[in-house]
């Protein structure tokens, strides 16, 4: 630090190339900042995709699996989740999903927990030290049985 300070003081600003040196430093810092902004946005875009897909899959699966007789069909839920994951996959950020059905102890309300994992590629793998990154987001939906179990159609 002392060396840098001494060197900085020795620059002949009126005759030397101090401003050029300074501008080049700003330029390099600017480029580093740009790389960081790009990678930050890359990860956050993957996060936005994972979150919106998780919400989509959770909502649609919950509605699809809930029968008109207020019974929850586990098999239909898993089928719909697989179908929507396949449909909503993207080339740049491929997704995979995990569905967990959490039945309520009373049997009235069921919770669905959808976890979506989006995979993306770093723009500058040399700087980050990794080729790919994974973003995991969750969405949880509770199916409320408004009939309170009064309706039962065998």
């Amino acid at each position, binding site marked *: 630090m002392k060396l840098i300070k001494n060197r900085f003081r020795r620059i002949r600003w009126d005759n030397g190339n101090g*401003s050029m040196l300074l501008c080049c430093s700003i330029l390099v810092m*600017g480029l580093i900042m740009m790389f960081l902004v790009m990678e930050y946005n890359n990860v956050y875009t993957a996060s936005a995709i994972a979150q919106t897909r998780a919400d*989509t899959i959770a909502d649609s699966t919950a*509605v699809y699996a809930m029968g008109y007789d207020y019974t929850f069909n586990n098999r239909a839920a898993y089928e719909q989740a697989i179908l929507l994951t396949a449909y909503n996959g993207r080339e740049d950020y491929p997704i995979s999903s995990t569905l967990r059905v959490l039945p309520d102890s009373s049997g009235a309300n069921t919770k669905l927990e959808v976890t979506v994992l989006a995979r993306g590629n770093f723009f500058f793998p040399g700087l980050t030290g990794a080729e790919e990154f994974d973003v995991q987001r969750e969405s949880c939906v509770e199916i409320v049985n408004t009939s309170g179990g009064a309706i039962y159609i065998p």
Partner: protein
Amino acid sequence: MKRLRRIRWNSGNELLGFAIALPMILVVFCAIIMAAQLGLARQTTEYALYSAARAAVVQENLNDARNAAQTMAGATLDSGTIGVSGYNIELETVAGSFDVSSGLVRWEKGALVKVVLTVDVDTIAPFQSSVLSSELIMMVERPATP
């Protein structure tokens, strides 16, 4: 030309050095702002798309769904993004039970609707305008009719 020859290149010229470096610095800063702007626009596009699809799937029919998606996408994009100059949203049913009389997929639970949102973004760079597009497939959440 005479003035250029008189410059002592080995000792440097502050003004000239600064003049050379300044445009490059400006380009880099513009690129930083552009990258940030596009990144924000991409994220907002995803959330606007989801909001629009969510609003669409609970409507009575496809026309109402189109209107609801249009309104919701507009409201989300207007409030959330810098530089969005225009957008277009398209809806179509891609799977479901087929209605023979109308020749269309029935707008009911189980049918899948594809929502495509295209957003024009005017970035800070005057020479570049970007178009962002994203699509989402969601299930219609209306009860099936006999």
